[in-house]
């Protein structure tokens, strides 16, 4: 399997209506990892995605994927995109298998007539996300988690090594979230790169290896252990988060100076524990299979 590396160099995007969406963002993404893209609404998460999807042209800088221009990488079907649930028209007259088959269009000829390879790829992808029995359903007849799964299946059928996920956990329950995370981790174990745009802070340490914090410019980028800190998060979110801190005497009857910090917007809270209100311990333990009974 090739080793796709996304190189974003000094990327700036200004929309024709004058809105500066991104300024001077540079990151290098390695394959075989899940990278969280974290920032407030309007911080430029979706613009960064759009730049990687060839939807917006950089005003300065560039994006290269596996050493190629975005356009060439897209032609080779290297990049897959899983849209936000709200962006999809669920009344659209397509069946589950039709949607997954759309992942194969880039491999088909002029008339988009599916071959046996295409049908096999669709069947395998549906199998992988446990959705085979729903293939004849219209997409609006699915539950929240199932809706996510079919678009992940479409990405799998496409066969790209880079998967862009936009807010994958909105509207799904915790159990579904866990099973999606398991699925993502198994995909990454096969050498893919998954980039997840989210403002759901609590889930980031439990499944991401790396994290990008942005707010128009790049605020921090690195492994979750070193980058997902209270200081960096304050920079990224400013006053946008609910912030609860229980330090030393509030929490203990003894001399222990450690404290608890809870950061939350509206989703799963991020809990930090340690000295100085948890500034030094930044990682909640990565969930293991054994933890879930």
């Amino acid at each position, binding site marked *: 399997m090739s080793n796709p590396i996304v190189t974003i160099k000094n990327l700036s995007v200004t929309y024709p209506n004058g809105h500066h969406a991104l300024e001077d963002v540079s990151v290098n993404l390695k394959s075989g990892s899940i990278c969280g893209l974290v920032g407030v609404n309007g911080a430029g998460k979706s613009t960064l995605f759009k730049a990687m999807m060839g939807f917006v042209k950089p005003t300065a800088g560039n994006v290269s994927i596996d050493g190629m221009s975005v356009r060439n990488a897209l032609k080779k079907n290297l990049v897959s995109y899983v849209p936000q649930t709200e962006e999809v028209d669920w009344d659209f007259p*397509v069946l589950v298998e039709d949607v997954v088959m759309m992942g194969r269009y880039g491999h088909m000829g002029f008339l988009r007539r599916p071959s046996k390879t295409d049908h096999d790829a669709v069947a395998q992808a549906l199998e992988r996300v446990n959705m085979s029995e729903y293939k004849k359903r219209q997409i609006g007849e699915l539950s929240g988690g199932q809706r996510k799964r079919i678009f992940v299946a479409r990405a799998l059928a496409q066969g790209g090594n880079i998967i862009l996920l936009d807010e994958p956990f909105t509207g799904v329950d915790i159990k579904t979230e866990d099973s999606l995370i398991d699925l993502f981790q198994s995909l990454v174990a096969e050498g893919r790169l998954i980039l997840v745009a989210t403002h759901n802070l609590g889930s980031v340490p439990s499944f991401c290896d790396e994290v990008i914090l942005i707010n128009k410019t790049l605020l921090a980028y690195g492994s979750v252990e070193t980058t997902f800190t209270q200081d960096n998060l304050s920079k990224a979110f400013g006053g946008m988060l609910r912030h609860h801190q229980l330090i030393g005497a509030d929490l203990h009857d003894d001399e222990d100076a450690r404290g608890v910090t809870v950061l939350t917007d509206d989703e799963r809270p991020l809990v930090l524990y340690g000295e100085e209100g948890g500034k030094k311990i930044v990682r909640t333990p990565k969930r293991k299979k054994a933890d879930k009974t």
Partner: protein
Amino acid sequence: MIDTLLALITEPLAHEFMQRALLVSILIGTVCSIFSCFLVLKGWSLMGDAVSHAVLPGLALAFVIGIPLSIGAFIAGLFCALATGYIKDNSRVKEDAVMGIVFSGLFALGLVMLTKIETDVHLLHVLFGNILGISSQDVIEAGTIAILCSLIMLIKRRDFMLYCFDPAHASVIGLRVRFLHFGLLILLALTIVSSLKAAGIILVISMLIAPGATGFMLTKSFDRMLIIAMSVSIFSCITGTLMSFHLDVATAPLIVVIQAALFIMAVFVGRQTQGMKEVSYGT
């Protein structure tokens, strides 16, 4: 009994103008119904409205310059669509507002021009069509455009469908999204131009929406929606044309009335089947 039924069909077709009317109505009924599926799914109903109104100044200008009216109409219609997109991208005004200004502005300009210029363009014919007065030349011109557009849309229907459903994915798998976008706009303008003489710029809007909306109510798969839309449209065109002869009423409006009636019926049928689906889904 059968003879009387047969006479209902053969009697009108004894006249050459009725033969032409039936042929052209089937041709434009087909192209409009295919496009209506994309229009309904893309949420472009207002775009259809806009482009058809905007052809008016193109007709007037084409008459002044002395080029075929269809070319003027096509250019004006496309100009409206492109101008709308350009203004939307480069300002903070929302698309529906921009469209409202651009198309009513162009339509008004067309009216002003027609009151000032002496033309053989009859405003009523432009607005509501003149299907019974259509010439063989018109049939050939409209038919060529209609058949060409129908073929393109049927052959590339999967690409256009994907573009309507999920343009981001279309872009990601390497399809040229701008090409598909402008392709659809050009096809829309051509479809309207082909229907101009027969249906007129007001009635074509209904022909561009009703069949697709009817298909949408009745099925969950795109190909079936396309088949239903085409069947409904062609059925309406045939019955509308023949009935208008017997009832001695205007042809194109009657076709549109039938299409609208079929849509209303589909709404009720669709609601019933949806209710049944919910019951079976719950158990």
